[in-house]
C-alpha cells in the first residue's frame, strides 16, 4: 500500500528508537522480513525521555518529512513516567514546529515494545501514507530554508 505511485515522493522519516526496547522491536521486523518504507531511518538512544526537541526541529530543517518516536511505553527500563515525559517532548516540539510553519502532525509518537515488529511496520506504513498526503516538507513555510 506504500508502493511508490507515479510522481509520488517517499517521505523521509526519522525514527528515534531506544537501545533496549524499541530498537530490538524494529530489528525484529527485519528479522521476520517484514517490509516497511526504506525511507525510514532510525537513530537509537538510551531512552525516549532524553530526546532534545531541538533535534526534531533540526531534522525538519534538514529535510526530513516526519519524525517518529518509538517510545518504550510502560516497558521503559529507566522510569515509569517515560511516556509522559516523552509526550511532553513531543508537545514542545510540535509547538515549536507550528511556530515556524511546520504541520505538527509530522511528529508522531507510539510505544513500540521489544517484540512489536508488526505494530512498528504498520505505524511506518500509516505514517508514510499520512506524510504523503501532507506533501513534502519543502512545501511548508518552515521547511523552506532547506537549502543547506
Amino acid at each position, binding site marked *: 500500500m506504500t508502493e511508490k505511485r507515479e510522481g509520488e515522493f517517499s517521505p523521509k522519516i526519522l525514527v528515534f528508537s531506544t537501545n533496549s526496547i524499541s530498537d530490538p522491536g*524494529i530489528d525484529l521486523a527485519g528479522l521476520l522480513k517484514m517490509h516497511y518504507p526504506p525511507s525510514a531511518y532510525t537513530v537509537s538512544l538510551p531512552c525516549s525521555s532524553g530526546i532534545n*526537541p531541538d533535534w526534531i526541529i533540526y531534522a525538519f530543517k534538514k529535510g526530513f518529512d516526519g519524525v517518529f518516536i518509538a517510545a518504550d511505553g510502560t516497558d521503559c*527500563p529507566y*522510569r515509569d513516567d517515560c511516556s509522559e515525559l516523552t509526550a511532553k517532548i513531543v508537545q514542545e516540539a510540535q509547538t515549536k514546529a507550528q511556530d515556524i510553519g511546520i504541520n505538527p502532525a509530522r511528529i508522531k509518537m507510539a510505544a513500540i515494545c521489544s*517484540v512489536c515488529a508488526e505494530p512498528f511496520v504498520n505505524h511506518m506504513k500509516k505514517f508514510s501514507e499520512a506524510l504523503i498526503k501532507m506533501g513534502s516538507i519543502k512545501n511548508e513555510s518552515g521547511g523552506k530554508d532547506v537549502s543547506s
Partner: protein
Amino acid sequence: MKKRIGVYICHCGGNISDYVDVKKVMHSVENEEGVVLAKTTVFACSDSSQKEMVQDILENKLDGMVVASCSPKLHLHTFRSVAERAGINPYEYIQVNIREQDSWAHSDKPEEATEKAIRLVRSGIRRAAQAKPLTPNEISVTNGVAVIGGGAAGMRAAIELADTGLNVYLIEKEHFLGGRISQWGALFESGERGEELVERLYKEIIKRNNIKIWTGAEVESFSGCVGNFDLGIKIHPRFIKTDKGCEKFEEIIKQCPVEVPDEFNFGLTKRKAIYKNYKKAFPEQPAIDIDNCTKCGICEQTCPEVFDFNQKVEKLNLKIGAVILTTGFSPYEPKEGEYGYKNSDTVLSLQQFRRLMELSNGKLVFNNKEIKNIGFIYCVGSRQKGGDNKYCSRFCCTAAIHTSLLLKEKYKDIKTYHLFRDIRTYGKQELLYRDSCKNGDIYLKFDENQPPEVITEGENTIVRIKDLLTEGEEIEINPDLIVLVTGMVPRNNERLEKIFKVPIGRDRFFNEIHPKLRPVETVIDGVFIAGTSQGPKNLTESILSSLSSSAKTYSLLSGGTLQLEPIVAIVNKNACEWCGKCDEVCIYDAIEKKEAEGKTIAYVNEALCKGCGSCIPVCEQRAIELKGYTNKEIMGMIDGIMEEVNG
C-alpha cells in the same frame, strides 16, 4: 573532529550483499571527509577480518572506526574490543545496522536498500567523527544474588551459586518450596519422583549456610544498578515457627474444621486452613492460610509452642549484585466447554489427572466410576491457530505418553487412546513413544482444522474423530475419562514483570536477548531468567538454563568489580544557570547543586547517573548533554542521512 576513520562494509556472507550493493556503498563513502580507508568484508566478525582491522588501525593510525553490519545488539562488543586491541577507545567505534534495519527489512527493494545503506553509513561516519573517548566507571559489586521462585530451577540455581561462594537469597511466593515438579509423581525420563527431587535439593540447600530461604515472600521493589541492586521483599507470616518441630502435625491438620478447595490438587480435593501441600513438603512445618482460618483455636491445643498468631508481615531490604528470575509456568487451564471441560464429569486436564493418579491407591476411580478407558486429546492450549498460544509446549506429548506408560504399569487392563496432531517425543523421549506403541496404546491423528468432538450424553461420553491415519475415517470412542493434554502458559505475574521490567516475548513468556548468544540474559543488565519462566521446558531443560544463568551470574560478580557504561549526563558549566529542573526530573538523585567559578550550577554524580537523558529536554538553557549522544553526534547523524546520494 576525527580525521582518520576506517569504514568496513560487511557482506554478512550474503545476508547484506544479496540485497545491498556493498561495493557501491563503499565507493559512495570512501571520499567522505575524515575517511582514510573504506573496505568491504565477507564477515566483519571473523577472526581474520578482525585481525585485518587491527592491522589497518595500527598501520594507518586510525582514530575512529565504523563497521556497517548487523544490529549492534549482536556484535557491538566484538568490534569495540577490536578497537580497544588496536588502541582506539571503544566508544570511538560506531556500529551501523544495515542488516536488520536495512537489507532484511527492505529485501524487496534492493536499490532503495542500497541508498539507505549509504545514508546510514554516512551518518555513522559523522557520528564517529564527533565521538569522544569515554572511560567506563568501575564500581565494586555486592556479593549477593536473589533467586526469585523456589521451584526446581530456582533451587538448583541457588545451590550452584552458593557453591561458587556467593550469598544467595531464595525467595518463594508459596509457603513451600519445589514448584510444580512436586505435583507429578514419577517424572520422565529417569523415573525419579518429583517430591524426592525436591527433598534432595532442599537437603542440599540447608547444608549451605550461604543460602537464605524466604517462603511466603514476594518482591515489593527493585532499584539500583547492575552490581548493586536494592531488593525490597515482603514476607507473609506462616503463623508456625519454622525453628520448632512437633510430632503431631498430621493430627493437628486433621482436626482443623475449615475446608477450602486444594489448589495443589487443582480443585479435585479440599484442604484445611492449616495445611501442607503434601506430606513431605518443605519446609517441614505446615502453614496457616489466615484468610480462611476462623481462629477457632483447635490447632493450638496440640504443640502450642510452635504456633505464633502474632507473627506480622515482615519487610526487608536486600542488597544484591544480580537477580535470577525462576518464576516458572502455569499449566494451561482449558476454557469452560473446551472439549467439554467443566461441563462434564468425564473431562479432566492432564495436571488434574496426574494429581488423581497420585491420590489413588488401588483402583483408579473418578466420580465413583472405575476408569478403564482413557482418551487423551493432545495440543489443548498449544499450537492454536487462532488463539493466543501459537507455540508448541514441548513437554506435553512426552508427559502424556509417559502418563500412559505409568498407567499400564499400575493398572494392567487400562486402555488408552491418543488423539494427536504430531507426536513430538524428540530425542531419546522417542523410546517412550515406542514403548507405548508396544503396549498397544492406540494413536489417532486429527487435523488442526477438524479437532475431535466431545459429546456428553448423561453419564456417557463419546469422542468423535476423523482419523487421518485411516484415510479420514470417522471413528467414535467411548472412554470413561477424557484427559486434555494441556500445555504451558506464563504464570500470572504482572506485578513482578512491572517491578523488574522483564521483556516479554511474543509467546508472553520472559524473553532472553538472543537464544544463541545470550540465552539467559535480559536487556536489563544483572537480571537473568531461567527455567520455564522463559518458555515451555521439561525439567532437564529447565535445569540447563538454571545452571547457565548461575554460570553467567558468577562470571558477572566474581571479579568483585564491574565496569559501567560511561553513558552519563554532562553539564555545560558556562550555559547552566541552575534552575533545578534537571534535579526535579532525575529519579536517581544524580544531580547535585554546586558552586563553581562564582556561580551555582548543576553537577552530575556519575556513579548515580543511569544515562536516561531525561534531564536534557527539561533544561531550558540546553546546558545538558549525554555522553555518546551529544548534540553534535545526533545532528551529525541527521546531516549524514540527509545529504543527497549521487549515482
